[in-house]
């Protein structure tokens, strides 16, 4: 990231954030932001609630593009008539397929554009990695693609990276702009706003005229940032990067690990024999990962009506690769754990020339047995697994 990070910035007081959100909503964008669900947090439609930005949501933003459960199409399976296949022609902002797929419901006319506020740079970067999977090959996933096209991602740079964060080691960083349409940066009592993409520019062009500020006439909550603001933001960025690099467990030797795993001996490295041992075989790491994208396709059927659905799946489950014949190419947790690590740090690299990890630290924080991917990578980088 060069010096132009801080050029041409806008500025809004933190307390005016909700005024801006109102303007987005008025120009027909659906606004999503972090919401609480029990003790966990995730992204959801905020309605009239005040925007609050947690350090990192428990559940990553990926589910707004690639939901855990999704109807691909519905069909009649009565056997009486010819099967009729209906595809969902609309997707609601929170990723739920609306009534459009139900046979009797009226189809809505499309998907509303939406804004997601409060995405962290790691999650935004992950979207670009998911694009490689869902939107860059011969086949494109229409469900993912349409949501991506219709979404403006507003990232909030991280002023205080957390204890499990290691984004800088993965090529990102607390102020990384990859995957963001707009970036908000804290500067004392304000946010500085950097409009990055064409989608972001359009959002602001459409919304700014609708702003209502302190007075009823003019949009006087958004200003151009001055030198003092920019200095404060620059200091905040430096402090954030310093905080991250001062945490030695955030400095993960990923390049060296990728190199080891990429050699012909990587797959059969003796370290695999030990490294997986405490793994419980649950799907916490994969389900909470912003880049994991494996899924299952199946039919859900009641009486004569059926839906072809897809659900998240996890390489950590034994059923994931179990053949109908009973043969399983990845029979134990060792092979399954290896698959997860190899997919992120070798197979994905071979296919797309970048690792499939953004260093958000969710798998580190949520693993029930503290099996830490940073340590695993350190082992392959030549360190000791201790």
């Amino acid at each position, binding site marked *: 990231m060069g010096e132009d990070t801080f050029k041409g910035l806008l500025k809004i007081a933190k307390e005016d954030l909700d005024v801006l959100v109102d303007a987005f909503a008025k120009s027909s964008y659906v606004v999503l932001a972090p919401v609480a669900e029990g003790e*966990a947090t995730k992204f959801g439609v905020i309605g009239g609630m005040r925007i609050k930005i*947690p350090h990192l949501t428990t559940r990553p933003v990926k589910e707004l593009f690639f939901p855990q459960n999704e109807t691909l199409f519905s069909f009649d399976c009565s056997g009486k008539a010819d099967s009729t296949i209906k595809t969902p022609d609309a997707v609601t902002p929170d990723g739920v397929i609306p009534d459009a797929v139900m046979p009797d419901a009226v189809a809505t006319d499309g998907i509303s554009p939406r804004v997601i506020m409060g995405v962290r740079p790691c999650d935004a970067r992950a979207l670009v990695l998911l694009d490689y999977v869902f939107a860059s090959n011969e086949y494109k996933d229409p469900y993912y693609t349409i949501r991506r096209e219709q979404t403006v991602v507003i990232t909030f740079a991280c002023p205080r990276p957390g204890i499990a964060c290691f984004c800088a080691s993965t090529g990102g960083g607390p102020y990384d702009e990859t995957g963001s349409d707009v970036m908000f940066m804290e500067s004392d009592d304000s946010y500085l706003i950097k409009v990055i993409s064409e989608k972001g520019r359009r959002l602001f062009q459409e919304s700014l005229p609708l702003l209502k500020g302190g007075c009823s006439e003019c949009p006087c909550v958004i200003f151009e940032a001055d030198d003092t603001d920019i200095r404060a933001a620059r200091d905040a960025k430096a402090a954030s990067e310093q905080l991250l690099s001062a945490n030695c467990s955030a400095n993960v030797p990923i390049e060296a690990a990728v190199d080891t795993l990429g050699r012909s001996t990587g797959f059969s490295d003796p370290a695999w024999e030990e490294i997986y041992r405490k793994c419980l075989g649950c799907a*916490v790491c994969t389900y909470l990962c912003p880049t994991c994208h494996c899924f299952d396709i199946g039919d859900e059927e009641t009486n004569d009506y059926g839906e072809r659905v897809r659900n998240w799946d996890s390489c950590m489950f034994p059923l994931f690769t179990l053949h109908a014949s009973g043969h399983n190419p990845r029979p134990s947790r060792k092979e399954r754990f290896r698959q997860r690590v190899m997919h992120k740090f070798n197979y994905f690299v071979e296919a797309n020339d970048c690792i499939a990890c953004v260093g958000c630290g969710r798998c580190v924080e949520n693993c029930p047995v*503290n099996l830490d991917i940073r340590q695993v990578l350190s082992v392959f980088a030549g360190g000791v697994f201790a």
Partner: protein
Amino acid sequence: MNKMTGNGTEKGTRHIIEEGIRNTATKMLESGEVDVFIGYEEGTLPLRTTPAFITCPEDATRLVWGPACENNLTVYLPKFQGAVGVVVKGCDVRTLTNLILENQISRDKVKIVGVPCSGIIDRDRIRKVLGTEGPIERSMERPVRSAQVTERSLILEGDGFEFEIQLEDVLAPSCETCAYPIPVVYDVLIGDESMARHAKDSEAGYVEVTRFAELERDARFSYFSREIERCIQCYACRQACPLCYCPECFTDRQSPKWISRWRGLSDKILFHLGRILHVAGRCVDCGACRRACPVGIDLRLLTKNMEKVVKESFEYESGLDIDCLPLLAAYKREDPDDFIL
């Protein structure tokens, strides 16, 4: 540096236990009594330890003990090859007893290293003590960057704050009312019984579920549904449970397919109720499922109630006796049958 364990300078209880575990592990590995010794070592985050599989005596110094030793290590024992030593708390040994009764590991293959337990901490409770309103605010305000344990308290440090919490105030709910902090079965007991937390009467643990049971049916169901609804079906609860060792869980059966991964609440309820019925008379409320849940579902509502039902119906507490039949494998004429329609 995060020290979640015995402090080097004072010879406190925790330090004595830690030394005891290391010495025992060294001895067992040197004598060849065990091939692997499973204990805890320092984790990579504040307030965390992590399971350690020690095979060389010289590595025994990695082993630690403290109120962050949360995992129930007996989860690794079913089908374990070779002789194994394992560190167990009062609750953990009760799941191990069940594993032995259910022929998942033979008694002579496992060396039980019991620890008099003074309770482990609950990270969710710590976050609640630190934070204010809800989970979002908690995450916004106070990330803990390091933690230290003293005999009775935790000292937490974050950006611009230092905070001391009494351990007693942040113990895991199952520890607060623990009736068996001293392992009921062991080959070696580290330290002595006086080092354990004072045992509570088992009834003390049922206060909350009793109160819940007194709520209106609708209120109970809506609370329960709200909790279960956010289940992401990662099955961490099942995988963390030492007693969920079936080679193929009913959840994973494809034909017939009992449970769908589709978004239905009823499938999620079926999974959780099915699981809890499968551990009826076996579950010891060690809390492993509750801790493993990444979205904080109140799973103890189920486990504790099941424990209570079993105790009231059969005067049976799971995992206390290594020479009895498992509850569901035994029949007594006086067993109540009023639940059979």
